[in-house]
């Protein structure tokens, strides 16, 4: 029994939320639909832990879907690289589901809740599928599953604020363009190589150096994924989508959605194609590197001038995605590892910040803007405490997870003779202190306009506390994140560098 379970884990981790989403939609009761969602995300999380242990033993697990052997059939690959985003997605999915239990009924009609949870599970399943699959076209399928489910989730925000419809529409159109570009790229590659399996692709593209169709196909794929990953300047869908989505959805999307696409980006850049190839070197140093640096500053500066806190955090996400793509663009083993470290830590940090802000908005029953925040820190000490810790983590203060990211990122850039990059990274993170400080100052130092009494709700702050604890824990004992990121990077670029 356990053997069968272990053997089928790669598909089970996807199927568990996917199947449950079909069941949840039929259940009219709010509590039971939540409970089933909770159960399936929890099981998915357990599966991902089991998978992690398996990967430690076997290093790569290949699963042939329906027993059709790859490269003809669809292959699911779990290795030391892909296990990393799987853990992020299932962990955050599980924590946000706990978080959503109070937030959803507050923002969504009773009748739509089970549908929302169904979409919720669909989005999570899509994201997990995205990172487990080893098939370029199957990847497109999951990309669309997760995007369409996310778009629908964002649109649910319209029950509170009609702006959500515009946001969802933007997200839909731009996301569809991205997906189309990606699938055109896959088509071109299929045309010249005759395979859709990524491992197979990577062997066949070696012989096709300087093939025009290959370069075009690569370009389409990369741009398509960059749209999904919200790499500057293809990020314009992101701030609105994050800002107007229902609270729990913002948290889920901010922490996981772009991470999965960033992982795909790394996989295509380093695993399907070869980093020693001129095509990749040029793409990295002339396209992704400059865009990442612009993103770092543009996102931060936009955040400094933003008054609406959810949008502010979304702009800051754009900047943080810049750090991750910058790490990929440097293209050494150390820097790719740094990118993975930041991917993990940023999921924890941004998830926590969005949780804190959306719970504040739940307590005061208003959109959270800078002026709304004044003096709230004293009224909600636990939420405020978590918010401060995670802000410090975002700023990269020592002994928090964010510091570990910055440390490795800077070490990697100095190690690659990029002292100026290191200085730019630090300069932009110093700028990020400005907007963080503005929020903390408003929460703590300003006097409230009228006396506010708020009773903090344990079901809301429990997941916030857990995720804040993780922010500190991974700052004090980072060996799990660092070691597995270095292993992942070794697997991706180790062969050539």
């Amino acid at each position, binding site marked *: 029994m356990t053997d069968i379970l272990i053997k089928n884990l790669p598909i089970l981790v996807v199927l568990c939320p996917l199947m449950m989403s079909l069941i949840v939609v039929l259940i009219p009761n709010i509590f039971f639909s939540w409970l089933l969602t909770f159960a399936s995300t929890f099981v998915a999380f357990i599966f991902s832990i089991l998978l992690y242990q398996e990967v430690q033993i076997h290093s790569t697990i290949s699963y042939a879907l329906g027993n059709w052997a790859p490269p003809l059939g669809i292959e699911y690959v779990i290795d030391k690289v892909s296990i990393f985003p799987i853990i992020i997605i299932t962990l955050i999915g599980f924590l946000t589901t706990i978080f959503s239990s109070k937030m959803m009924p507050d923002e969504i009609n009773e009748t739509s809740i089970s549908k929302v949870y169904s979409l919720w599970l669909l989005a999570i399943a899509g994201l997990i599928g995205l990172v487990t699959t080893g098939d370029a076209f199957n990847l497109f399928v999951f990309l669309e599953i997760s995007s369409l489910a996310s778009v629908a989730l964002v649109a649910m925000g319209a029950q509170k604020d009609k702006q959500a419809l515009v946001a969802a529409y933007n997200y839909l159109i731009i996301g569809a363009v991205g997906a189309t570009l990606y699938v055109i790229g896959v088509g071109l590659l299929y045309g010249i190589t005759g395979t859709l399996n990524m491992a197979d692709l990577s062997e066949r593209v070696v012989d096709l150096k300087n093939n025009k169709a290959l370069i075009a196909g690569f370009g389409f794929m990369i741009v398509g994924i960059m749209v999904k990953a919200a790499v500057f300047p293809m990020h314009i869908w992101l701030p609105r989508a994050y800002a107007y989505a229902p609270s729990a959805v913002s948290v889920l999307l901010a922490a996981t959605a772009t991470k999965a696409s960033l992982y795909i980006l790394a996989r295509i850049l380093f695993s399907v194609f070869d980093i020693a190839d001129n095509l990749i070197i040029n793409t990295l140093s002339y396209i992704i590197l400059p865009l990442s640096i612009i993103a770092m500053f543009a996102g931060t500066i936009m955040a400094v001038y933003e008054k609406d806190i959810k949008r502010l955090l979304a702009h800051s996400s754009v900047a943080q995605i810049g750090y991750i793509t910058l790490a990929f663009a440097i293209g050494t083993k150390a820097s790719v590892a740094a990118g993975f470290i930041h991917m993990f830590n940023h999921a924890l940090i941004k998830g926590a910040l969005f949780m804190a802000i959306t719970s504040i908005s739940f307590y005061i029953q208003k959109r959270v803007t800078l002026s709304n925040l004044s003096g709230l820190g004293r009224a909600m000490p636990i939420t405020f405490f978590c918010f401060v810790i995670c802000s410090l983590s975002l700023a990269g203060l020592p002994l928090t997870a964010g510091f570990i990211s910055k440390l490795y990122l800077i070490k990697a850039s100095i190690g690659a003779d990029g002292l100026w990059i*290191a200085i730019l990274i630090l300069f932009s993170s110093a700028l990020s*202190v400005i907007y963080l400080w503005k929020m903390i100052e408003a929460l703590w130092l300003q006097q409230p306009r009228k006396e506010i009494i708020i009773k903090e709700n344990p079901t809301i702050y429990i997941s916030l506390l857990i995720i804040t604890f993780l922010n500190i824990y991974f700052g004090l004992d980072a060996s799990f994140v660092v070691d597995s990121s270095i292993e992942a990077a070794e697997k991706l670029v180790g062969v050539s560098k």
Partner: protein
Amino acid sequence: MISFENLILITLLSPLLVCLLTPLLSSKPILRDILGPFGGIISSWGSIQLMASILNGEQPRLELLQIAEGISISFVVTPLGAIFGLVASVLWIFAAIYSVGYMRGNKEKNQTRFYIFYAMAVHAALCIAYAGDLLTLFIFYEVLTFSTYPLVTHKQNEMAQKAGRLYMSILVGTSVILLLPAIIWVWVVTGSLEMSQNGVLDGKMNPKYAPYLLAMFVFGIGKAALMPIHKWLPAAMVAPTPVSALLHAVAVVKAGVFTMLLILTNVFGIDFLSKTGASNWLVWLASFTLLTTSIIAIYKDDIKARLAYSTISQLSYITLGGALASSMATQGATLHIITHAAGKITLFFVAGAIYVGAKMSKISELNGHGKSMPLIFLAFFVGSLSIIGVPPMGGSWSKFFLMLGAAESGYITVIAVFCISTILNAYYLMEIPARAFFFKKEREVKIKIPILITIPTLITCFLTILLFFFIEPFENLTSIMVSKL
């Protein structure tokens, strides 16, 4: 016999315990106020033991926490660290007593918060003193900055907030943008964050880049207050005087120059510096700062502002001593950490005493008040003599060694800089007792100085004299520090 690991823990944790216990005792002011001096005594006892162990040729170390491979929080007692640790913990006893007198005498608000962050800052300073690797050093350097922010903005008015913003942006900005990448650069070049007695860069770093790395360190260590990043120190003077006395004359600024000396000796290594000449430019920058700020000090009428500029100038002595890259100058610079600390804390204590006792903060107001506050002004006089470097005060030793060091490394001009600066020191410091004792009194002021202020002031004043006669153990420590080179 307590193991060295526990000894380090005791020394470091006693201020932290004070910091944690203070809020619990906020309703019992007497107990709360005793905590500080009590913690200081325990911590000083620990730091004296640690210093003795160094003199016996041992090297206490403590590995506290492993964050990831190659990154850990660890503590090592070096001769230089032992000296800084001793200075910070011993002076904390007196500063803690003094701050009780000051805070009560001045009826300040939020006293509990004040004591919490005061102890926190001392904790951070001690952790810097015993930091075993560059990352630990950086972490507690930041903790020190953050823990002093609530002290600088203690008055919570517009001016204090403005000063606090300047304070934070300079100190955090420089350390994050320059110090951190410099540390990581060393990490990349040498492959570890460890430091060693002989420096770690020799043979690993291209000498061509050494001046740039040094520049990143020099401007990254904002707490050493070299021009042009010195502005935060005068701004920090809005804080209550005990903060200026312990933190902005001893703990914070000395943490800056301590870090600077540590980087110069244990990261670059004196040999490497003198061989490559990487620090030549620093000699001139420090000399420039030293003279310019002395001149600015002359024009400051506010006592604390004048003392602040005097501090910047004296800190440059220490940086200059390190930059000269000779063993004699390094010894002088290290001794100057002690002698200047004892002297300057006395001067600040006096400034605070005058403020609490007579509500005066301008030098021009002091005319003729010497007779009504004789002990206080006498203490100021003695402290000034030590800063100027007149025997039989402790300050004479460090200046002596610094001048010898300048001669040893062949910088004749620097000797002239020291001489000119001594004259300037005498000019701006002696004006204060001179006005107090020899000028005619312009108005009568009612004077009431709490005993808890007078006593610590006299003790630290006495320490400056004592240092002249008992400099030997410290001199031995500094020679251990340079002998292994």
